[in-house]
């Protein structure tokens, strides 16, 4: 498997995962609107949390769609992978900070494990990025 194929698989996998997760978040928001609807999970959500869950879901659907486009045309959409790597690093940073400062101690090591996984994916996006195409 060459680097370009691996990059396309990476973009496709992360893109589909993000899109499905986004749809799940959006569905969770609508489920929370039902009478007595309380979303399961380690973090208790109030109405504010459900609102931001829906916002995050919409953003993930758009982000995932961009990554799926990058999987189809990796050379012309290579900046999507770079931006994704940057965003993954930022997400890992806030998870490490959240874990370190203790406000989310009830989550245990979930934040650390998530941060480690995101850093691994960011590293893959950095090193598998295809070279730029010549314009004109």
């Amino acid at each position, binding site marked *: 498997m060459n680097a370009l194929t691996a990059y396309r698989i990476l973009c496709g996998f992360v893109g589909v995962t993000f899109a499905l997760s986004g749809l799940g978040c959006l569905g969770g928001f609508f489920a929370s609107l039902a009478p007595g609807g309380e979303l399961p999970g380690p973090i*208790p*959500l109030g109405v504010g949390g459900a609102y931001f869950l829906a916002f995050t879901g919409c953003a993930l659907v758009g982000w995932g769609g961009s990554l799926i486009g990058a999987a189809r045309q990796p050379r012309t959409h290579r900046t999507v992978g770079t931006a994704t790597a940057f965003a993954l690093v930022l997400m890992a940073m806030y998870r490490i900070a959240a874990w*370190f400062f*203790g406000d989310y101690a*009830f989550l245990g090591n979930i934040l*650390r494990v998530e941060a*480690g996984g995101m*850093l691994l994916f960011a*590293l893959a996006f*950095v090193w598998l990025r295809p070279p730029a195409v010549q314009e004109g």
Partner: protein
Amino acid sequence: MLRWLATAVIALLFALDLGLPYTPLGRRGPEALVRSDVAITGVSVGAPAPDLELRTLEGQPLSLAEFRGHPLLVTFERSVDW
């Protein structure tokens, strides 16, 4: 060059993720709250509860001694203020 810079940043974050001690600055975490506000050990079953002082949700001090002579039910549960 930028690729190596990004790799260095990611490696640094990896080191932080794996190497940082557990919530050393956690002044608001539940475990830190127990450590700082309720530093009581060695309480035996059946013995009178030792006095302790906590803060109410409004920030006012609340002492267990204020309830002496009255029935008092104390429960412990996780509370997350979002």
